[in-house]
């Protein structure tokens, strides 16, 4: 078994491929996620970060490239049983807590659906007990099991989504903006919860978000996406200390911090892709600027960046 739980190789996801409306949602990205680590993926809406998550878990079939889970190609044809097994190991927490819960099902049944499909519990009492345990893990209580999704606030619904993902004891969780809809104090609870669960069960996360302060906090390594491409990838601290790509810098400068004095002097650096001024024969590639720190740039930019890097 290798160190890498997830290996994404030259993944491409084009919608309406070949037509005039072609959208290159993911345009040739590669990265790996190590066992037990949290890989953060950030970028603005429409940059392809959610699509990446969804393609990894095979909600979309990839246009080209591979996703290897434990060395197994997720997108290759498989028997029903193999698929079933893979589905249990990979779970997803969705972005929109309003759309991701069936309004006609009780919370009990929503959370237990995975348990039923994978035959993880025997009998009604065990099923209910397991659901109640899960509800309590995510900060809800037992009375909530008998209610319907519309009776919950957005934050509570998201916690139901997390409980549902945890229900089948997965190894790898793709969390697609799991905390954007939650309150600060609840965000901290959920992030701590995700961290605790990671330590306890050795979970691996792909954490997709636009809240960079939380991403930095939870992630070991971070990838920054812009228009379907990974523009920068580095260990979390390194990325915040030494952002190299102009887009990463612009993203970092846009975060408001809970510090009014700092906020009064914060200057935002908007990003304009035209600033790069690549020549027609310049090759824009992923270069390793420092150990583990990769930047999408041309040879010329690389030389400049290396000169300015501290």
């Amino acid at each position: 078994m290798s160190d890498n739980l997830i290996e994404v190789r030259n993944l491409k996801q084009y919608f309406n491929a070949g037509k005039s409306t072609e959208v290159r949602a993911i345009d040739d990205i590669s990265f790996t996620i190590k066992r037990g680590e949290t890989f953060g993926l950030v970028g603005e809406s429409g940059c392809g970060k959610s699509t990446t998550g969804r393609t990894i878990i095979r909600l979309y079939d990839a246009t080209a490239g591979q996703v290897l889970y434990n060395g197994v190609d997720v997108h290759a044809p498989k028997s029903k049983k193999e698929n079933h097994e893979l589905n249990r190991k990979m779970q997803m927490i969705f972005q929109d807590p309003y759309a991701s819960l069936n309004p006609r099902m009780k919370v009990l049944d929503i959370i237990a659906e995975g348990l039923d499909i994978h035959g993880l519990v025997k009998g009604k009492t065990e099923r209910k007990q397991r659901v109640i345990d899960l509800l309590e893990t995510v900060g809800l209580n037992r009375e909530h099991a008998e209610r319907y999704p519309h009776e919950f606030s957005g934050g509570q619904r998201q916690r139901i989504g997390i409980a549902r993902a945890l229900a089948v004891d997965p190894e790898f969780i793709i969390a697609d903006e799991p905390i954007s809809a939650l309150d600060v104090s609840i965000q901290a609870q959920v992030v701590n919860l995700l961290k605790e669960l990671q330590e306890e069960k050795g979970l691996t996360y792909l954490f997709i978000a636009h809240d960079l302060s939380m991403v930095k906090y939870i992630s070991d390594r971070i990838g920054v996406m812009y228009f379907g491409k990974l523009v920068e990838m580095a260990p979390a601290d390194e990325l915040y200390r030494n952002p190299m790509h102009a887009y990463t810098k612009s993203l970092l400068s846009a975060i408001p911090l809970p510090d009014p004095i700092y906020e009064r002097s914060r200057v935002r650096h908007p990003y304009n892709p035209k600033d790069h001024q690549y020549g027609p024969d310049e090759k824009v590639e992923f270069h390793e600027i420092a150990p583990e720190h990769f930047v999408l740039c041309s040879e010329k930019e690389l030389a400049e960046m290396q000169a300015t890097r501290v």
Partner: protein
Amino acid sequence: MTKVLEVKDLELSFHTFAGEVKAIRGVNFDLHKGETLAVVGESGSGKSVTTKSIMRLLPKSSAEYKNGQILFEGKDLTKIPEKDMQKIRGKDISMIFQDPMTSLNPTMTIGRQIMEPILKHQKLNKSQARKQTIELLNLVGIPNAENRYKMYPHQFSGGQRQRIVIAIALACNPKVLIADEPTTALDVTIQAQILELMKDIQKKTDTSIIFITHDLGVVANVADRVAVMYGGRIVEIGTVDEIFYNPQHPYTWGLLSSMPSMDLEDQKLYAIPGTPPDLLNPPKGDAFALRSEYAMKIDMERQPPFFKVSDTHYAATWLLHPQAPQVEPPALIIERMKTFKGSRYYVDQTGGTV
């Protein structure tokens, strides 16, 4: 400073099958002209209900104003007939909702949606209204307004939709603009643009803004004053600097500590333990006492009144009572207080404690 809006002892309940939910339990605040008052607090603290009660958008069948007044231009908004309220709503007081995906009508062109309040509240004909709509679209930064005017919401991105929602809210030059988590659904770069837009418009029109959010970074960016809500009451209110650098209420301490700071190393985030109070049976004393490590015996028995910290800063916690023991706030908060003149932890730049 002139007061635009005064909320006095507001109490509001919802009648549900389970009983009476006391969603707002005595809220007091003033809104001054041209200022931004941020209201922070977790879900269920009553911040959205407070603003919706100002707009009278709560269902009549279940919501009941129990007590108090909302004074706007000499009128009590809790008492006036619906017909009068309709003349204020969308004109003098307007609102920006959280989710730009659901707050626009998908079957109407955005032009018609922006024109709606203009035609309703101003004596303009259609072509004049159309001209004003295009001006508004330009104001909120929608390029090519003449053509995009005829488009439907789904043809716009999330950030643009929120700009359109802002245009609708601004259509009649409101005196009070209520923004209920206007940037929560947007990502950071778009959020930054929307916040800059709102500040810019405020400078031009001198509108007063009530800004509801749970993102303290956003609060630090936009607010002049901050009201912290918990369990249906305001527990602390003050200028943005007072709340961020000299917080007094344990709940404010908890909120500020639970934000990850950018230079934070791998330590656990502070999470306020427990869950918000059940407002079906609100606690007798300080609603936060059950989750607070600083709670004293009296917190369980009697609701703390507002104690004055400065002319602009009030906090409802027994810790400020002269007889209360001096407690140490969390280390992170002490760090913040060190930078604030007037705080008991203030450290002068030269090093000595004052």
